[in-house]
C-alpha cells in the first residue's frame, strides 16, 4: 500500500473545487438571467404604460385616436369568456379527476383516457383554435362568439384542472377513505362528503392556475374569429327577452384583453405602443397575481396538513 502523497491530493482537490465554485457562480448567473428578464419586462411596460392607466382607460372603447382608446370592450369580453370557461371546465375537470382516481379500474380503457389527457396537455393552443373553428363555429353553428371561445379555452385548460384534482385526491391518506367506507358510505357518499371537501385547496390551486392561463391565451381566440376592433359591448347576461334572450350574450361578437394588446402592439404609432404597454401591464398584473395566489395557497396547504 503506497504512502499517500497528501500534498498532491491537496492540489488536486483545490483544482476540482475551483471548478465547483465556477459552476456555482454560473448557476447563479443563469438564475439572474431569468429574473432580470422578468424585471426588464415589468419595468419597461410599467414605465411606458402606467402613466397611461387612468379611470378612462378602463371605461373607454378602443378608438382610432390612441389617447381616447380604452380597454372596456376587452376586459368585459375577457370576463364573460372566463365565465363560460369556468362554468364548463371546472365541473368537467373535477368530475374527470374524481372518476380517474376513485372509480376507474386499471385497464386499457383507462390507459387510453390517461394517454389522451397527457397528450392534450402538449397540443399547441392554436390547434385548439382550429378545432373550435371547424367544430364549434361552423359544424355546431355556435358562431364566432363568446360561447365558442369559452368552450375552446375550457378544453385547453381541462388537463390542468384534471391533473390538479388527481394530485389533490391522491394526497388524502388512505385511513380517511377507509373510515368513511367502514361506516357504510357508498362510493359517491365518500367522495361527496369526504374526499372532495378535503381536496378543495389543491383543486382550487389548479383552477386558479388554469384560469390564469386562459386569460392570457390569444391564438385560439383569434382563430375563432374574435374581432380586433370592437366598439360595443355584448348584451348583459340575463337581460333580453326570456327565455332565449337571456343567453344572447353568449352569441355576441366580442374581443378579449390579449387581442386588444395584440392589435395595439401591431400598430407602428408610438401612442398605440403606450396603450399596448398599459394593457400589457394590466394583463401581467392579473396573471401574476393569480399565479401568486395559487402558489401561496399551495404553500399554506403544504405547511398546514391538518390530518
Amino acid at each position: 500500500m503506497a504512502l499517500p502523497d497528501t500534498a498532491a491530493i491537496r492540489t488536486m482537490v483545490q483544482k476540482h473545487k475551483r471548478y465547483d465554485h465556477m459552476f456555482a457562480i454560473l448557476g447563479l448567473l443563469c438564475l439572474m438571467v431569468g429574473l432580470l428578464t422578468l424585471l426588464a419586462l415589468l419595468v419597461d411596460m410599467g414605465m411606458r404604460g402606467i402613466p397611461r392607466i387612468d379611470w378612462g382607460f378602463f371605461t373607454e372603447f378602443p378608438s382610432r385616436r390612441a389617447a381616447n382608446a380604452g380597454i372596456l370592450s376587452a376586459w368585459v369580453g375577457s370576463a364573460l369568456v372566463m365565465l363560460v370557461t369556468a362554468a364548463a371546465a371546472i365541473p368537467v375537470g373535477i368530475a374527470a379527476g374524481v372518476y380517474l382516481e376513485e372509480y376507474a379500474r386499471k385497464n386499457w380503457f383507462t390507459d387510453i383516457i390517461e394517454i389522451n389527457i397527457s397528450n392534450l396537455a402538449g397540443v399547441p393552443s392554436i390547434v385548439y383554435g382550429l378545432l373550435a373553428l371547424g367544430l364549434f363555429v361552423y359544424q355546431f353553428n355556435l358562431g364566432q362568439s363568446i360561447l365558442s371561445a369559452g368552450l375552446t379555452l375550457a378544453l385547453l385548460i381541462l388537463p390542468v384542472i384534471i391533473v390538479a384534482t388527481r394530485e389533490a385526491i391522491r394526497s388524502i391518506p388512505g385511513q380517511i377513505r377507509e373510515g368513511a367506507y367502514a361506516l357504510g358510505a357508498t362510493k359517491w357518499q365518500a367522495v361527496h362528503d369526504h374526499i372532495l371537501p378535503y381536496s378543495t385547496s389543491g383543486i382550487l390551486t389548479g383552477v386558479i392556475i388554469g384560469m390564469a392561463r386562459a386569460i392570457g391565451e390569444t391564438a385560439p381566440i383569434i382563430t375563432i374569429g374574435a374581432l380586433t376592433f370592437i366598439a360595443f359591448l355584448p348584451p348583459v347576461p340575463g337581460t333580453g327577452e326570456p327565455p332565449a334572450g337571456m343567453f344572447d350574450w353568449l352569441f355576441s361578437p366580442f374581443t378579449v384583453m390579449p387581442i386588444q394588446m395584440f392589435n395595439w402592439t401591431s400598430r407602428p404609432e408610438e401612442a398605440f405602443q403606450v396603450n399596448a404597454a398599459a394593457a400589457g401591464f394590466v394583463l401581467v398584473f392579473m396573471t401574476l397575481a393569480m399565479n401568486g395566489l395559487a402558489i401561496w395557497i399551495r404553500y399554506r396547504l403544504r405547511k398546514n396538513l391538518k390530518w
Partner: protein
Amino acid sequence: MLAVVTSARLAKRRSRHIKELLIEMLLLGAAMVAVLTTLGIVYVLFSESWVFFQHVPLKDFLFDTQWTPLFDDAHFGIMVLLSGTLTSSVVALLVAIPLGTIIAIYLSEFATPRLREVCKPILEMLSGVPTIVYGYFALLFVSPILQWLFPSMSGFSLLSAGLVMGIMIVPYVASLSEDAMRAVPMALREGAYAMGSTRFQTAVKVVFPSAFSGVAAAYILGISRAVGETMILAVAAGMQPNLTFNPMEPAATITAYIVQVALGDLPHGSIGYQTIFAAGLTLFLVTLSFNILGYFLRKRYREAY
C-alpha cells in the same frame, strides 16, 4: 314484520345502487371529454385537409419552395413555413436547454433549500406570463437592442422572437429537469461523495446521468412548446413567408400564418381557408411525434431505484 323491513331495505338499496351507477356514468362521461377532444381535433384537421389535398397534390405541398396560397399563381410549399418554425425553435432551444439545465443542476445540487423555495415560485411565475406580453417584449425591447448591435437587421426577425421564446421555455425545462434530479436517491450521491467527488463532479457524472430520462422528457416538452408557440412569432418575426434558415431575417412560421389568415376575412370553404387546416395538421403531427417520442423515452429509460 322483519320481511317488510328487509324488503324495504332491499328496495332502498336497489335505488341507491341505480343512483350510484348513474353518477359513475356521469363522471365517466366527463373523463371521456379528453378522448372526444382528441377525436374532434383529428376529425377537423383531417377532414378539412382532405378537401385541401383534392386540390393540391401532396408532392407539391411537401416539396414546393414557395408559399403563396392567396396569390393568383398560388404555391403551397409547406417547407417555407417549416423553415421559419425550425429556425426559431432552434434559436429558442439554444437558449432554453443550456440555461434550463444549468439552473436545474444548480437548484438541485448546489442551492440551499431556502434559495430553492424562493426560486421555484419565481420560475413558475415566469412561465405564467401571457405569450402576447412576451411578443410585445420581443418587438419593442429586444428588437431595438438587436438593431443597435447589428444595424443591418430589420425590426422583425426570427432571432428576436426566438430569444424571447427561449426565455419563456426556460422555466419548463428547468422545473421538470430539477424534479427528475431530485428524484435520484441520496444513496447514489453519497456513493459519489465517498469517492472524493465535488458537488460539480457528483452532479455531472452521477446525478445527471441517473436522471436522464426525466431530463430528456423535459427537453422534449421544451421542443414541443417552441414548435407550437404562436403569438411571440406573430408579433415579432414578421408575417412574410420566407424560406430561410437565417435567424436574422423575418419569416413566417406555421403558427403565425394561421393567425394571419384568421385575422383576415377568408370565406368558409375557400382554398385559403383550407390551407390553415393543412398547415395545422402538419403542426399537430410534428408535435404529436415529439410527444410520443418523449413518452417512449421516459418509458424505456425509467430507472427504478
